[in-house]
């Protein structure tokens, strides 16, 4: 976590990013490396293969930050990232998971 209290984490603005990626062993490192090398915390990660498994979908829950627009551009530059979509923090994908993290 990034040093905020639990309360601050829950109240600070969040964004959900949805990435379609090529499914291979290094793709997750490429994606999270962009964040970690900028000391930008990823709050939640979800990844599963799509269809026959040639591609995967990665869902990232991140804090809103002045750097977010730059992060999205950098994600779009990755060879293995096919598309990036931004959603609001209220996107249901992470909400449904909350019961696993109680």
């Amino acid at each position, binding site marked *: 976590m990034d040093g905020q209290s639990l309360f601050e984490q829950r109240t600070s603005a969040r964004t959900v990013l949805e990435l379609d990626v090529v499914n291979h*062993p*290094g793709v997750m*490192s*490429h994606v999270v*490396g962009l964040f970690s*090398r900028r000391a930008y915390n990823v709050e939640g990660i979800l990844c599963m293969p799509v269809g026959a498994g040639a591609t995967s979908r990665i869902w990232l829950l991140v804090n809103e930050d002045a750097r977010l*627009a*730059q992060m999205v*551009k*950098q994600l*779009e*530059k*990755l*060879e*293995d990232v096919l598309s990036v979509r931004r959603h609001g923090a209220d996107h249901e994908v992470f909400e449904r998971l909350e019961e696993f993290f109680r």
Partner: protein
Amino acid sequence: MTILSGAQLTVRLLERQGVRVVAGIPGGANLPIYDALSKSAQIRHVLARHEQGAGFIAQGMARVTGVPAVCMASSGPGATNLLTAIADAKLDSIPLVAITGQVPRGMIGTDAFQEVDTYGLTIPITKHNFLVDSAAELLEVMPNAFRIAASGRPGPVLIDIPKDVQTESIDVNAWPEPGAPDPAPPVDIALVQRAADLIEAAERPILYLGGGIMHAGASETASALAEKSSLPTVMTLMALGALPVDHPLSLGMLGMHGARCTNLALDECDLLIAVGARFDDRATGKVAAFCPHAKVIHIDIDSAELNKIKTAHVGIRGDAAAVLQELLPRVRGQDRYSWLARVAELKRMFPLVTPGIADPRTHYGLIRAVAENLDDEAIVTTDVGQHQMWVAQSYPLRRPRRWLTSGGLGTMGFGLPAAIGAALAEPDAAVVCFSGDGSILMNVQELATAAEEDVNIKVVLMNNNALGLVHQQQTLFYGKRIYASRFRAAPDFVRIAEGFGLRAVDLDTAENPKEVLHQALTTRGPCLIHAGIDVEDQVLPMVPPGAANIEMIGG
């Protein structure tokens, strides 16, 4: 149908790609590739003496030609030794394909002998990287690597090939097309028109050229735009040579060691037209105070550069040459009489000061004397430090792709192997490497490579027996507390060079240094030219790190 091993496949795909020279060092994990390479009639292998040297030799070739160049290393320390050269290529957007051997797939993750996570290590310093999982995959990976390295904003690509993939045999039925750069993205004409409108309306515009001009081959179009619209033009370290320094519209290099007139003109401009430049901190100084009155047009092939450091009023993603070609007919000719008169006045009042330029025993004088012996086709490489900045300030650079310097990463040790690579790419060119006594020792072993390949390079070694730029910063900003920047031992560089099998001359002991220099520069083959300089000489003017560009010291 042909049965080939992964190693043979790799070499065949390099041949099909048109590769003629590769630099590298063999080791346990890439020996199958070297065995296959030994049978290639097309590819010449240049044996470096350290993998970092191999990386920079490849960079030298790539920087001169603009085509991806290849370096090779074995696993473990071979791969880690390449890292600095790969990171350097990333920061300067140089197309490089690095091919490393890896331990066999079954041993990956076991801490096997000379195993290191090359894939993981190179993620943040490559444009893209591959860990090849089968010989068949090479048919896709190899052309893809060359395509990625050369497309859009160029950069380094690494291919890590486990040894058992190199020895795996497969049937090859069909060959893939060699990797070629993707076509440039379409230019948004509406944005170009808005940029043209801003240029028309501006009273005090400045054209700001970066390394992207070189990669796009856009020097001539940029010059044409500057001339048509009377745009005073500044260049980053990477763009030197885009516009001849003695062109009437040239203001030379901007930023930390730019001339006072250059940074002062930028401070007054009302429109900044950035092309293939990324607003690096060494160019802008304190960003909030950089061109404070200017609107910004930013043209770059990498959309992530637009609005990264400074918000653009008009940001255009595109190939610099393609965008400038659309922009050119949309601006009308202007003479901008009063702005050019003001810039001329600044140049007159605050020129670059080059003390001793007529005396070849001074730093500026030596650079001038070297230039007088060479024409505009000569290739100039540098290491990193004071000598690099003095050359950037004062060498009459007039052509693109003739100036090879480590800009973004600032790697000491770059100059000598890059010069070897440049000479391999253009065997008939005159290649001069300006270096310092700190930098040369960081890849001095490549003197052996230079002698072995008999490349036509001249190393001009400016020796102050110190880490000069560190010494300068300690003098200026750390209360003159000189620490760990003066060398106590003084190697005899002339004997070192001779020991490696090079000719060497010492200008310090020469009665007529100009004549000795002329002889050394005009005699074919590798040669070291040694010249002592004063440790108290500084690179001036200087913008203190973190300060605004108008807060210059000296000069």
